[in-house]
């Protein structure tokens, strides 16, 4: 079958990028005044908003409180207008629940939860426009939001997806590349230590190639870190200027 050529002979992808190149990333912190922390990120056409509340007292049943650390509560939803065809249910479907759990796992590994026992941290993420790599965008947005809220973390959590086409690892897949059905891997990395907060892949990929795909994802995640770091510094600079006055 003559499918879409994801990687041309010259080594360009459908949108003109090379194999290891990221899409354009733009991000802002502190977009909402009411929340404790918030951030907005654009990775190409994937746009996500993250809001953080807490740490605060446990809401609802007190039985959920953990004696030694804070409870991280993540909720993922994607806007009805985020995809080409309008979605019926913005949240609460299985995919959203799964994504929420994955985010929770990711941030439980990154946030220093033991500093806030018996309390709760809420992370709400909404995808406004989905064009591939939603998990990565959500994690990156949430990282900025958590930083904005001033919740202590071990490190940034930087996420990126990677795929494998024509024996070449592609970083940061767009929707077109994802839809082609090849193997896809999502990686959340703590860049300073190189520790992996979450690694997920549900397609078949031979173990010989796993390393190269993982390497591509990790390199891309480090690139994301450089960019996020710049955004945070910029934000702090702006905030300090305001405070200084």
């Amino acid at each position, binding site marked *: 079958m003559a499918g879409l050529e994801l990687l*041309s*002979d*010259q080594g*360009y992808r*459908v*949108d003109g990028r090379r194999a290891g190149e990221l*899409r354009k990333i733009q991000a802002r912190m502190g977009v909402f005044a009411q929340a404790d922390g918030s951030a907005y990120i654009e990775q190409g*056409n994937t746009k996500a908003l993250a809001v953080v509340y807490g740490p605060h007292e446990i809401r609802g049943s007190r039985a959920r409180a953990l004696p030694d650390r804070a409870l991280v509560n993540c909720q993922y939803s994607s806007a009805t207008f985020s995809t080409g065809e309008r979605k019926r249910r913005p949240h609460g479907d299985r995919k959203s629940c799964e994504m929420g759990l994955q985010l929770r796992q990711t941030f439980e590994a990154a946030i220093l939860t033991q500093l806030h026992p018996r309390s709760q941290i809420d992370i709400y993420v909404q995808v406004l426009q989905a064009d591939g790599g939603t998990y990565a965008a959500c994690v990156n947005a949430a990282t900025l939001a958590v930083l904005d809220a001033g919740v202590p973390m071990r490190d940034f959590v930087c996420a990126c997806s990677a795929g494998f086409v024509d024996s070449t690892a592609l970083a940061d897949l767009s929707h*077109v590349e994802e839809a082609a059905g090849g193997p896809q891997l999502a990686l959340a990395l703590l860049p300073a230590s190189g520790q992996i907060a979450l690694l997920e892949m549900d397609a078949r990929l*031979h173990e010989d190639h796993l390393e190269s795909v993982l390497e591509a994802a990790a390199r891309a995640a480090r690139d994301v870190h450089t960019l996020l770091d710049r955004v945070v510094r910029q934000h702090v600079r702006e905030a300090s200027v305001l405070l200084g006055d």
Partner: protein
Amino acid sequence: MLKSKTFLKKTRAGGVMKIVREHYLRDDIGCGAPGCAACDGAHEGPVLEPQPLDPASSLCPRPHYLLPDTNVLLHQILSVWRPGTWASVASSLRLPGSLETYVEQEQGENANDRNDRAIRVAAKWYNEHLKKISAENHLQVIFITNDKKNKEKAIEEGIPAFTCEEYVKSLTANPELIDRLACLSEEGNEIESGRIIFSEHLPLSKLQQGIKSGTYLQGTFRASRENYLEATVWVHGDTEDDKEIILQGLKNLNRAVHEDIVAVELLPKNQWVAPSSVVLHDEGQNEDDVEKEEERERILKTAANEKMLKPTGRVVGIIKRNWRPYCGMLSKSDIKESRRHLFTPADRRIPRIRIETRQASALEGRRIIVAIDGWPRNSRYPNGHFVKNLGDVGDKETETEVLLLEHDVPHQPFSQAVLSFLPKMPWSITEKDMKNREDLRHLCVCSVDPPGCTDIDDALHCRELENGNLEVGVHIADVSHFIRPGNALDQESARRGTTVYLCEKRIDMVPELLSSNLCSLRCNVDRLAFSCIWEMNHNAEILKVRFTKSAINSKASLTYAEAQMRIDSAAMNDEITTSLRGLNKLAKILKKRRIEKGALTLSSPEVRFHMDSETHDPIDLQTKELRETNSMVEEFMLLANISVAKKIHEEFSEHALLRKHPAPPPSNYEILVKAAKSKNLEIKTDTAKSLADSLDRADSPTFPYLNTLLRILATRCMMQAVYFCSGMDNDFHHYGLASPIYTHFTSPIRRYADIIVHRLLAVAIGADCTYPELTDKHKLADLCKNLNFRHKMAQYAQRASVAFHTQLFFKSKGIVSEEAYILFVRKNAIVVLIPKYGLEGTVFFEEKDKPKPRLIYDDEIPSLKIEDTVFHIFDKVKVKIMLDSSNLQHQKIRMSLVEPQIPGISISADTPNMDIDEPERKKKKREK
């Protein structure tokens, strides 16, 4: 690097959907001209020539690059292509547009216009860019397009632009190139002139609709070899039963060419016809004879019998053309000075093609290649253009080339890209090579092959172990070590599929460095191998089997005769000889056991030519001789193949590449049973075992050759053995070898299937890593399809090569009379086999321009009574063999009956038959 982005909006069939895509324009795409400082090294891949060759064009005398537009590239690349002259920008103009040459689609502009504009912008950019780098060289880019508007616009924008024809005409140094231009330009304006013969083809969208709704049927068009006005279409439906539809008459064939995928419409039942038995060849020179055609068509229809009527249809559209360049000869036009000539392809199923050439007289009597460009509605013949001159008819090299082309055997020299993956010489085994590899260089290994063999892919050893058992090893060249999956070398080998052995030439599957050197297990050099090692007792029962990659050092490369001599001579008792004796002993037991299980020993007449070492002309024919050692090597190869098949199927039940040989349907054996009955012998065909037994018993003391004849007949009843992927089939049985499972492992130098099997086995024993294609059963099934096709074609090419050399042989030998046996009896002919040459031929009893003899054919016995003489199958006759060159394009061996004598039919042994001999003589005169 990410400069700007753009949004494309697109709707899809069904609901309207808004798709937003971004697109990064790059600033790092180089121009490709070497030494360009502006885009220093930014370009990867193919590079432009630093100083384009001077093509001596009168239009643009300065050196220049050519920039053809897409249509020119598509249609003319084959015809006028000369390496290095084209600028390879077309590829970089595609989606990842460079920042400076990116063109956005304007409102109201369609995609084609946008692309044309993009190419113009690129041409302009190139011209300006090249000016910057070499003002003194005046390098120029010339834009070649056949689109008038496009050319006008380009000239307006200051880009030097020409049509392809203008440019090629201006090449003063190569006037012959003009003939090779595809004649597409005329297609548009010719429609008004002349009568329209054919109805229009429907557009693809309508065809697809029709196929979906069932009004049209899709199938492969197969022209008839015998009758140019008739064809069949094989409809491959979802169900098992493939339907066949008959098409008759030029208009119903509607410009379809052999092997096209077409859509046909069934005609109403009252217009159905029966396949005609008339032989019709398209011979008229005058192409406007449509009335005559209609008359001919009527001839076809008269013979129709109610029962014989078959579904009949007409072609309504072409789904996919399968045109390729065709070999054939020019039939020069009768009109002098005419530039239009008809070309007659060697394959009778291809219609004649009209071409335009100025060098008709130079091309006459030569084999040429012509490509079809199109078939307008008002033209009786398709239009084409001359591609290549292969050489004189009858010339050995030309004929070899023709038969390779006609059998679709890839035989071009290996490309640079393929050769780049070869190991660097001098090569030696390194430490890295020895990883996962056993060192077996101390073993006394030797190879046994036919004389003159340079691609030795197997070697053997046998030694006694301390426990009294025997260790037998089969060592196969480790080709998969050199051909790594996925690279150009691998792809090319996969495409070729097999090495093709012609009488005087070998078309390698892998480059010679591998086939005759690094992978060839020659004696006294270290070579890498894949070994299959058994521990056997003296009864040839396998106690243990193991597979390993290894390094070996063969102690001797023997021929079958040499090996036989060593075994037989009592004086020799060295290590090699004892090893050979051990092998021979075991092989005999193995063979006996195999035959007990019901393996067939079949026979087919194989001939070998003795070539003149200077001229490479065949000087003698000889049937192949078989020695004990042949079967010794064969036995161990079979054993290795079976062991490996078991192993890979055990490890990869879903995607093992195996080989099966289906049992033939009982009806196939009818002819054999009948033939045996006529000699009072009984052949049982219910199982392979009973067939083998009854063949063994079928002996006649008075007629010793009978058994061989029966075996030859039995071979003809068999099915083709094929490769398949174990996950896609559930019948693995190999009928001929009586083995439940079989594969090919032992000849990786000349068969691609073996390379895949090697890779599978290497993964199974953990010596190598796998890759995605290897474990994808659909890809493997596709590969099997190609391999089966290539093997079939290679066989046909081999046969054609033998046939051609037989002709050469008889040409030099003149007319001879030989004894022959009747192999088949047909309605108006007998097929005979001449044991001396292994040559098979047909003796016809009906000839043109001669009174028809009285023929009575009896299907039951098969026998044929001519006048008063009855011919039975296996009867001994005497025939005269001569070369019939009345048709230059299809020379063939003609046989006629000498004994028994039938007045008016048989000819005497010494008077030459005048009407056949004449053209032959004429030709000889011309040669002088």
